[in-house]
């Protein structure tokens, strides 16, 4: 069973990963985007860290951790990734309800729902060269292990390189979007890798 602290550590580890990788994410967002994905997520996750540290409003369950994180992302990120990641975490958190501890199965189910909400909100499908190309295979591999999920997401992010974008601003480029890795898929892989690290006790 995973307790509230596990989810706090997931968000902390994700924040650290975004801090470390922000420049690379912005770099990836330059040739096929508007060069802000790294600074967007950095702003958002710094706010998540602050909100969780403040512990306000009282965060007493896994579901509340993710919902607070999601709301914070929505209120601080902007852009496409703010509402999408915000919805991912809020919806996942809502699915977890107010249980003090959740099973790995429950978390997997909840993440499924969260990813579904992202797909519905953004109208994208796998293959469109978006964060879903990392999230969908990642969450599908959760049945195996957290590490498998992280690896599948990482693999999915890399597999966006040859794709032509059909959603998000990279789609404006048409065929010129081919040959670049999607920044959102890359950050999604970071998020699932942070989860694996925490599950492995590495963080």
């Amino acid at each position: 069973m995973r307790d509230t602290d596990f989810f706090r550590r997931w968000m902390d580890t994700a924040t650290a990963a975004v801090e470390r990788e922000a420049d690379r994410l912005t770099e990836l967002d330059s040739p096929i985007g508007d060069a802000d994905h790294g600074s967007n997520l950095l702003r958002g996750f710094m706010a998540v860290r602050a909100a969780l540290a403040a512990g306000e409003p009282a965060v007493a369950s896994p579901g509340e951790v993710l919902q607070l994180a999601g709301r914070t992302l929505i209120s601080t990120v902007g852009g496409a990734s703010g509402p999408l990641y915000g919805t991912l975490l809020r919806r996942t958190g809502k699915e977890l309800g107010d249980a003090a501890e959740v099973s790995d199965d429950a978390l997997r189910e909840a993440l499924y729902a969260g990813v579904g909400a992202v797909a519905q909100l953004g109208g994208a499908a796998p293959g469109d060269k978006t964060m879903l190309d990392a999230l969908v295979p990642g969450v599908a591999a959760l049945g195996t292990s957290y590490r498998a999920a992280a690896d599948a997401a990482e693999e999915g992010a890399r597999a966006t390189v040859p794709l032509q974008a059909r959603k998000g601003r990279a789609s404006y480029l048409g065929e010129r979007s081919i040959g670049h890795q999607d920044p959102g898929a890359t950050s999604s892989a970071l998020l699932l890798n942070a989860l694996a690290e925490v599950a492995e006790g590495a963080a």
Partner: protein
Amino acid sequence: MLINSAETVVADALRGLAAAHPELDVDVERRVVVRRDAKDGGRVGLVSGGGSGHEPLHAGFVGPGMLSAACPGEVFTSPVPDQMVRAAAAVDAGQGVLFIVKNYTGDVLNFEMAADLAGEDGVRVEQVLVNDDVAVTDSLYTAGRRGTGATLFVEKIAGAAAEEGAPLEQVAALARRVNESSRSFGVALSAVTTPAKGSPTFDLPVGELELGIGIHGEPGRERRAMMPAREIADVAVGAVLDDLAQVAPADGPVIALVNGMGGTPLLELYGFHAEVARVLSERGVPVARTLVGNYVTSLDMAGCSVSLCRADEELLRLWDAPVQTAALRWGR
């Protein structure tokens, strides 16, 4: 760059806006710029917003005859829903609020969330999506056409209608009609340097240009060897007119906006406009009104865009109506 730090660029600009324009109510912390008398007169409220870096859009268009409020996001990043919710509350005089949204995934999602929240707060909200950029094919395989220069047409004309006291549904319908009557095409002669990145977002050597760009420093649909202004005008105006041909009345007059992306000298913009006017005349399109200048920019990008709006008597009358904002002023 002429900044204190990448992190404070938007807040600093809002402090400067507040200092320069006492007639605006600028909430630097919460990033909402409101016309001081927004709630007087019982008008429909007009709220727009989007990433910063396109100045004077949108904050420069807040004032009598145009926007009631603007919500500036981080540079090239859509604002967050909290901003639009706050703006809606600040301008709603019971007549409802129109959100003017440029069609980008981020803007659409954030405004949508804001509309839901504002609705829950009891504000009647309508939305209009601006999607005028003909460089992007509007299909299942893209996020749809971008919103660019026509935003100015929509904000000006809908703003005039709201100022006259038109009800929400009518202002919204008018805004949609303006959008549907408008098309744009843009060209970049240099990449853009954002404060956060500090270097050009892509590599565009001198002697080459990008056709079909947006306003976020993204590359366009196609790269070409540099062309003289007259050929650029042929391509840009041609693309706009071909697409506009579907809009009735097919032979009506247009309002023309020859817009600088920020880094192109006004001297060049006027020279470019000479070529735009030539193409329009060759194609038999009467130009009823013209605006040349930096209105919907992309930071320091060199380049320009052409926007045309097919305008009937009503649209022209509303276009000519008085406007008193930081960046657009005439009449009265």
